């Protein structure tokens, strides 16, 4: 069937997903650039606003083995809780030097790392959002991206009120999406969140319907 030219007709079905496969080219990933959410453009300096953070962890499969050469993609609000996007009524106040998007390619141990700033919370129609970073995992064997959200320790009240975290029915699952505070290094606060794509009920990361 033709997929073009039906501007006013029935919606076109979205193209089906397929796996990233095992061979995503390393050359399409620039470490330190693509995984730095603070830079609007390649070569631009990082934003000066906000608390610098490093959000890191491992992507693991059933049995605890690493997912190698997998993509983790991140998207978050700026330090003031705003997006430079017309869906944000306050987009004019968004940090003009902050992008908020990045992607990391996991290494041989399944490790990913993002450089960013601590996101701000904001009020949404669905409820008050706590500071958070949306994460998506693409890997061989993952046929459609797996999406989840990283929350931060030290925001207990905001986390308890967050409408996405509250979509998890069990406190143990909610706790699993709160990154671990690992102190400070290289001028940034360090947070860890391992992403267990499949595991026993006590370890598997909760993922959301996309």
């Amino acid at each position, binding site marked *: *069937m033709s997929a073009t*030219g039906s*501007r006013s*007709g029935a*919606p*076109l*079905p*979205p*193209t*089906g*997903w*397929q*796996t990233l*496969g095992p061979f*995503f*080219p*390393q*050359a*399409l990933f620039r470490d330190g650039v*693509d995984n730095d959410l603070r*830079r609007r*453009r*390649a070569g631009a300096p990082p934003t000066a606003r906000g608390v610098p953070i490093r959000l890191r962890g491992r992507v693991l*499969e059933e049995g605890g083995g690493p997912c190698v050469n997998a993509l983790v*993609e991140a*998207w978050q*609000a700026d330090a003031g809780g705003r*997006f*430079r*996007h*017309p*869906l*944000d009524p306050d987009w004019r106040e968004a940090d003009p030097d902050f992008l908020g*998007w990045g992607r990391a390619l996991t290494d041989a141990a399944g490790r990913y790392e993002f450089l960013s700033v601590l996101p701000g919370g*904001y009020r949404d*129609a*669905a*409820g008050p*959002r706590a500071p*958070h970073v*949306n994460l*998506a995992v693409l*890997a061989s*064997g*993952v*046929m*459609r*991206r797996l999406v989840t959200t990283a929350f931060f320790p030290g925001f207990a009240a905001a986390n308890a009120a967050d409408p*996405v975290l509250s*979509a998890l*029915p069990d406190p143990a699952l909610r706790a699993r999406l709160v990154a671990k505070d690992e102190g400070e290094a290289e001028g940034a606060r360090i947070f860890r969140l391992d992403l267990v*794509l*499949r*595991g026993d*009920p006590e370890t*598997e990361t909760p*993922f*959301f*319907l*996309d």
Partner: protein
Amino acid sequence: MPDHPLPDCFPPYDEAGQPQVPIEGYAATARRNPARALFRRPHTRTELTGPLDPAAKLVPGEGNLAVPGPGRVALGQLIHISGRVLDEDGRPVRGAVLEIWQANAAGRYANPLDAARDAPLDPNFVGHGRVATDAEGRYGFFTVKPGAYPVPGGPGRWWRPPHVHVSVIGPSSLSRLVTQMYFPGDPLNPLDRILNALPDPAARERLIARQTDPAEVEGEWLAYRFTLVLRGRRATPPLP
């Protein structure tokens, strides 16, 4: 930033048009997809938005994978792949970042992780590229037709048909797409377990490119057209 129709409509995917797991003979699908059901979440601003100008971060290149330099041409059938990126209303998605990667004509990836087979590398074929869509959502790549390759491991060995991996970063986080493009008429297509993970035959058909009438093709490149439809209606972004 002008006002514009907002990407406010992201209905759930039709499962018949999306891959189902696990896939027999593809062990990673059993080890890397959650045992627990996915949780429904509200779509708040973070889910609905995305970077307006991803091409500023992921800088587009030439879009020619087959001619890496003067006098250097990759081995294989030279082809041109072009098409449009649309939203579910058929509106063009401009400024989307489109990346492709593929095996060479012998079925080998120029990736150190693909090293377990006899199929040769081609020094003139690196096998990946990145472009941004224009105002009409159009994109194009010059490349070679990839070879088939056997899936390693396990009993019940099977083959991947010639395919091109495609990644599209569009206007919303929810419109993200990673897929594979297949070639019309290949006898391996009906046997491919990854293509066949889509239950709906029409959805599988949409992953198969259409060959342009060779009589209309000028030059030395066989031409294929491949349309990509991103999830979401009224999702065309404004110019940043």
